[in-house]
């Protein structure tokens, strides 16, 4: 959008007829166990929407004129019906941009994708080097992502996205990320680390420092619309000029999330009962939830900026990210934990201890992550045949309830 800080944002506060930016997580199953996973994914939820239910959701999105969805997970491509759902959506005027760690993007699949309209692919990469990436996403994940990029580029898929969550360890790699994107004819997309899902456990150590935030902001200003951000850094516009994008929290107004079991949340970073608006399997379907949920109605009423309203930056940052505040235990009408004026840091010190902040839920994390499992040493084990059947009764092992021997316990008379 080219018009500055926007009367449109005011219009959008009241909510749209349908979301513009709808995230749909198709599964909680994932082959990785990224330490910052927003949705605490890992294990498939047995209540996951069936193929038919997914088709019904797409039919509804088509009727509501939701023109595209951001599909994610978990790792959406591990659903056996993923390609079927993808084809169904694009056949029904619902374009798909899906996020993947690249595990299924073989040369064959890359060619299929390159031949389709209305499909966009986003490969997740959280370090421009294997060391930085794999520390967050798991051993070998850098190579998997790069292989997927090579396959897409090799198949002629131009302009796929490389999606990076900015952390303390990769802000300094921005130029390197850009170089990787340029090498593959891809577009760089960087987003904010949220303290959501497992991200709550690592946010303190991984979120960019104040100095890095400034560096990031300056870099974004210098690169303009060349770099996508999913509008996720609007809390940084307090530094000066607004960044490209809507510049507001769109939760429940412009944005929402459908999770793998059909639960509708106000935004993808707020998977918690406090932000649960309904379920697509409810009688009114997704449209009913979008139009009539009490939570969304509340979010669409004028919000108070609380203490932030007297701040000179409030007009541009609008108090920042709801989910970031919630999961760090800050009040929703207070400053963002990464407030550029430093109000967030001060509020965090005064707020409840991190241990008492609301915990993201539900949790589908692997009980033993694949990464950890891969590191585990083999258990030394020696298999040996059972000793041959005893010749004398006295040599028999003691009888147990499970003894398979029909003569167990039988002592022949002499």
């Amino acid at each position, binding site marked *: *959008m080219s*018009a500055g800080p926007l009367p*449109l944002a005011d219009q959008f506060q009241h909510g*749209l007829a349908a979301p*513009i930016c709808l995230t749909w997580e198709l599964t909680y199953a994932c082959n990785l166990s990224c330490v910052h996973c927003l949705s605490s994914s890992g294990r498939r939820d047995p209540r996951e929407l069936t193929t038919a239910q997914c088709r019904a959701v797409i039919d509804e999105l088509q009727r509501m*004129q939701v*023109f595209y969805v951001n599909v994610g997970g978990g790792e959406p491509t591990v659903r056996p019906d993923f390609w079927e759902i993808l084809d169904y959506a694009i056949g029904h*005027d619902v374009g798909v941009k899906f996020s993947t760690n690249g595990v299924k993007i073989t040369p064959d699949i890359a060619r299929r994708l390159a031949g389709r309209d209305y499909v966009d692919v986003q490969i997740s990469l959280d370090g421009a080097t294997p060391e930085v990436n794999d520390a967050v996403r798991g051993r070998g994940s850098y190579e998997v992502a790069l292989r997927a990029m090579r396959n897409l580029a090799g198949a002629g898929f131009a302009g796929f996205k490389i999606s990076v969550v900015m952390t303390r360890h990769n802000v300094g790699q921005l130029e390197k990320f850009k170089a990787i994107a340029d090498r593959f004819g891809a577009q760089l997309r960087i987003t904010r680390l949220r303290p959501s899902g497992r991200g709550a456990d690592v946010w303190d150590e991984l979120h960019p420092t104040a100095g890095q935030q400034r560096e990031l902001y300056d870099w974004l200003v210098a690169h303009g619309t060349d770099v996508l951000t999913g509008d996720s850094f609007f809390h940084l516009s307090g530094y000066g000029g607004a960044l490209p994008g809507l510049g507001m929290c769109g939760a429940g107004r412009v944005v929402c999330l459908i999770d793998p079991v059909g639960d509708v949340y106000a935004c993808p970073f707020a998977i918690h009962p406090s932000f649960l608006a309904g379920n697509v399997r409810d009688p009114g379907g997704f449209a009913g939830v979008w139009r009539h949920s009490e939570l969304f109605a509340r979010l669409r009423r004028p919000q108070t900026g609380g203490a932030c309203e007297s701040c000179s930056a409030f007009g541009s940052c609008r108090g920042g990210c709801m989910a970031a505040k919630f999961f760090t235990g800050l009040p929703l009408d207070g400053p963002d934990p990464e407030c550029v004026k430093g109000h967030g840091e001060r509020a965090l010190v005064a707020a409840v201890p991190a241990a008492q902040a609301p915990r993201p839920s539900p949790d589908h994390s692997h009980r033993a992550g694949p990464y950890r499992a891969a590191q585990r040493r083999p258990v030394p084990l020696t298999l040996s045949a059972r000793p041959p059947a005893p010749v004398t009764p006295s040599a028999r092992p003691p009888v147990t309830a499970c003894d398979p021997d029909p003569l167990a316990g039988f002592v022949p008379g002499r």
Partner: protein
Amino acid sequence: MACAASTEPVGRFDLDAPWRLDAQVRVRPEAFGALLYHFGTRQLSFLKSPALAEVVRSLGAQPSARAACTAAGVPARDLMKYARALETLAASKMIREREGA
């Protein structure tokens, strides 16, 4: 995302030519006006008034952009503003000149 109501100067927009929506564009009515989506370029545009939305929707059925504006009740003094908005939409390929009309 392109924004229809920008302040770029009017250059080449021909109000008297026949126009139409691009075949890959869909219009979603909204309280503030409408949302345009181009399935080819994957761009969104926001039409910030119901009158502009009506002009854009009716372009294909009117002999010229000027006629579409008149039919939608756009006052003559606002025509240049609408021409600028339409020019932005043309630049982002949301609307196209109709051929052979």
